[in-house]
C-alpha cells in the first residue's frame, strides 16, 4: 500500500491525476457530456503513456465526472451525469430556496466522504470480497434488480401508479433488439439499426436533457433557470455532518456494495441510497422539497460507487458499470490483465490504483471547492445560448457512440417522449430505472429459471436472493404503512414541479 501511495504521489502521476480530475469535473458539469464519453475520447491519447499514468488519468476522469455532475444538477436542475439524477430532486430545491452554496457544499462534502469510505472498503475488502462476489449468481442478481425496481414505486410515492407506469414504459423501451438470453431479435421491424435496440446514452440524453431543453424553451423569453451564487461560500459545519453521519455511512455502504455488483452503475446506487434515506428518514415528507439528507445520500452513494466498482474490476476483471468497461479496456490495452492474479503479479500497480483513487477524491474536493464559481459561470449562460449549444454536445455524444445518426434520432424521439410525459406529470426517473434494469433483470431471471427447471421456489436455496426479495417487500410495505400516518409525500415530484 505504501509503495502504491508513493508511486501515485510521484509528480508526473499527480499531474495526470490532476488533469483527469479537472477535465472530469468540467465535462461532468456540462449536461449531455459524461465521464464515459470523456474516457472513451481520452483512451487513444493514453496509448503512448506509461500504464500507471494512463490508468490514473482515467480514474481521475471517472471520479471527477461523477462529482462534477452535481453542479448542473444543483444549479440547473439538469443532471450533468446520469449518476446525479437524484441530486436534482433535493439539490435544486435547496439551491432554489436561496442556499445554492449550501447545496453545493453538501454535495461536494458528501462526494468526498462517499469516495473516501469506498476507498477504505476497496483497500480493505478487495481480496475477500472478490471471493464472495464469485458466488453471486443469477438468482441473487435478479432478486437485487427486483429490489431496485421496487424502489421505483418508493421514490415515486404519491404518484405510485404514474411511477410504475413510467417504469413499465422504460422496460418496454428496452425490449427491442437482440435478447441477451437466446439471441432472438425482438421488435426491430426489419431495421438493422434496431438490432442493438435503443442504446442507453441516446435514451438518457433524450429523456433527461432534450426534454429539459424543450422545457427551457417553453419558458418566458430568454429566461434561464440557472441559480445564481451568492458572494460568500458557507461550507456546511461539523454539526451538519455529525447529525447526518448515519445517512452518509449507509449511503456510502450502499454505493460501494452496489458498485461491486456487475452491471449496476452509479445512477442505480444513488437511487437506492436515496430511496433508503427516505425510507429511514424521520422527515420523509421533506424529500423532493430540498432536503439535506437527499443531497447527501445521492452524492455519497454515487461517488462510493466508483470505488466499489473498482473492486470486481481489479480482482475479477468484471466491470461494475459501462464506464468501468472503458477502464478495463484501457488496462488490457496496456498489457495489464485484471483478475485475481493481478494482486500477486502486479501488486504495485494495484496499490497505485487504489492510492490514486484516494488522491483523486481529495483532488476532486479541492478542485470543486476552488472552482465551483467558475464552473457555475460556465453553466450560468442564458437559456437561449445554452439550449442550442447543449443540443450540439448531446448530438456529438449520441453520434460518437456508434457513428450513426440513428442514435441522434433516438435521442430526439425520447426527448419528445420525456417532454410529453413531463407535461402529463408522469415522473421521468422511473422510466430510466426501468430502461436500465430491464435487460439484466430478464437475462438473470431467465438464467435462474433455466437452472431450476422453471421453478420459482428454488429461490429458497439462495439465502442472499431471498434476503433481497424480503428487503424489496419491506421497502414496498414500509412507506405504505407510513403513508397511513401521513408521512409519505412525492419525492420524485421535485423533477416534475413547474417552476
Amino acid at each position, binding site marked *: 500500500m505504501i509503495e502504491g501511495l508513493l508511486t501515485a504521489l510521484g509528480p508526473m502521476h499527480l499531474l495526470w491525476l490532476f488533469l483527469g480530475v479537472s477535465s472530469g469535473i468540467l465535462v461532468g458539469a456540462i449536461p449531455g457530456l459524461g465521464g464515459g464519453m470523456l474516457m472513451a475520447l481520452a483512451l487513444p491519447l493514453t496509448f503512448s503513456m506509461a500504464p500507471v499514468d494512463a490508468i490514473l488519468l482515467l480514474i481521475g476522469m471517472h471520479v471527477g465526472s461523477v462529482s462534477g455532475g452535481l453542479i448542473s444538477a444543483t444549479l440547473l436542475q439538469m443532471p450533468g451525469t446520469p449518476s446525479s439524477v437524484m441530486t436534482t430532486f433535493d439539490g435544486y430545491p435547496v439551491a432554489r430556496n436561496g442556499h445554492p452554496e449550501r447545496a453545493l457544499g453538501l454535495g461536494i462534502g458528501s462526494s468526498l466522504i462517499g469516495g473516501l469510505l469506498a476507498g477504505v472498503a476497496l483497500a480493505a475488502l478487495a481480496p475477500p470480497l472478490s471471493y464472495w462476489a464469485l458466488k453471486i449468481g443469477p438468482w441473487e442478481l435478479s432478486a437485487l434488480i427486483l429490489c431496485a425496481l421496487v424502489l421505483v414505486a418508493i421514490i415515486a410515492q404519491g404518484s405510485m401508479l404514474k411511477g*410504475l407506469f413510467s417504469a413499465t414504459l422504460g422496460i418496454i423501451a428496452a425490449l427491442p433488439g437482440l435478447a441477451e438470453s437466446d439471441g432472438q431479435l425482438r421488435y426491430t421491424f426489419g431495421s438493422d439499426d434496431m438490432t442493438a435496440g435503443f442504446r442507453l446514452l441516446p435514451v438518457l440524453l433524450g429523456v433527461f436533457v432534450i426534454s429539459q431543453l424543450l422545457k427551457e424553451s417553453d419558458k418566458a423569453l430568454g429566461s434561464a433557470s440557472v441559480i445564481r451564487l451568492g458572494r460568500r461560500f458557507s461550507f456546511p459545519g461539523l454539526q451538519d455532518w455529525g447529525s447526518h453521519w448515519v445517512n452518509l455511512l449507509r449511503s456510502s455502504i450502499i454505493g460501494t456494495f452496489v458498485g461491486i455488483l456487475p452491471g449496476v452503475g452509479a445512477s442505480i446506487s444513488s437511487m437506492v441510497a436515496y430511496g433508503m434515506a427516505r425510507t429511514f428518514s424521520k422527515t420523509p415528507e421533506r424529500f423532493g422539497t430540498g432536503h439535506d439528507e437527499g443531497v447527501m445520500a445521492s452524492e455519497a452513494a454515487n461517488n462510493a460507487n466508483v470505488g466499489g466498482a473498482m473492486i470486481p474490476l481489479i480482482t475479477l476483471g468484471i466491470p461494475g458499470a459501462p464506464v468501468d468497461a472503458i477502464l478495463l479496456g484501457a488496462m488490457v490495452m496496456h498489457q495489464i490483465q485484471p483478475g485475481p492474479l493481478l494482486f500477486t503479479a502486479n501488486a504495485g500497480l494495484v496499490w497505485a490504483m487504489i492510492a490514486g483513487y484516494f488522491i483523486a477524491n481529495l483532488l476532486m474536493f479541492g478542485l470543486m471547492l476552488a472552482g465551483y464559481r467558475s464552473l457555475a459561470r460556465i453553466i450560468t449562460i442564458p437559456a437561449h445560448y445554452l439550449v442550442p*449549444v447543449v443540443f450540439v454536445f448531446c448530438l456529438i455524444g449520441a453520434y460518437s457512440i456508434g457513428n450513426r445518426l440513428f442514435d441522434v434520432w433516438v435521442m430526439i424521439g425520447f426527448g419528445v417522449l420525456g417532454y410529453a410525459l413531463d407535461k402529463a406529470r408522469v415522473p421521468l426517473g422511473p422510466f430510466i430505472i426501468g430502461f436500465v434494469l430491464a435487460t439484466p433483470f430478464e437475462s438473470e431471471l431467465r438464467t435462474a429459471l433455466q437452472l431450476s427447471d422453471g421453478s420459482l421456489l428454488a429461490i429458497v436455496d439462495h439465502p442472499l436472493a431471498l434476503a433481497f426479495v424480503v428487503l424489496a417487500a419491506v421497502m414496498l410495505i414500509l412507506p405504505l404503512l407510513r403513508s397511513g400516518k401521513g408521512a409519505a409525500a412525492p419525492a420524485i415530484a421535485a423533477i416534475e414541479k413547474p417552476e
Partner: protein
Amino acid sequence: MFDPVGSAALPIACAITLLLLGAGVLVQTRLQRHSGQLPEVATRGNTRLATIALLALMIAYLLAMHLGIRFSLATTGFVALAIPLICQRLSVLPLAIPIAFILGFGSEWLFTSVFFVDLPGTR
C-alpha cells in the same frame, strides 16, 4: 425445458401491466378530479410555438446532415437560427452568429483533428 420463460414473456407481461396501470392512472385522475383534488383541466402550461419551432429546427438540422451537409456548416446554421428563435429577439443575432461559427467549426476541428472522432459528414 431449456428456457421456461421465453422471449415473449416479458413483453407480454409489460403490455398487460402497462394497460392495467394506464387504466389505473385514468381512474385515479377521474376520481381526483371528481373529488375536486384536481382542476378540470390539469395542464402545465401550453407548449410555446417557439418550442415546436425549435423541435422542427432540430429535425431540419439532422436532416441536413443526413443529406450530406458537413457537421460544421449544419451546426453553424442551426445555432445561428436557434438562438434568436428561443429568445424571440433578432437583436441577439450579432452575438449568435460568431457563437455559431465558433461552435460549428471549432467543435468539428476539436473532435475530428484532436480527438479523432468522426462527426456527421466528416468521414
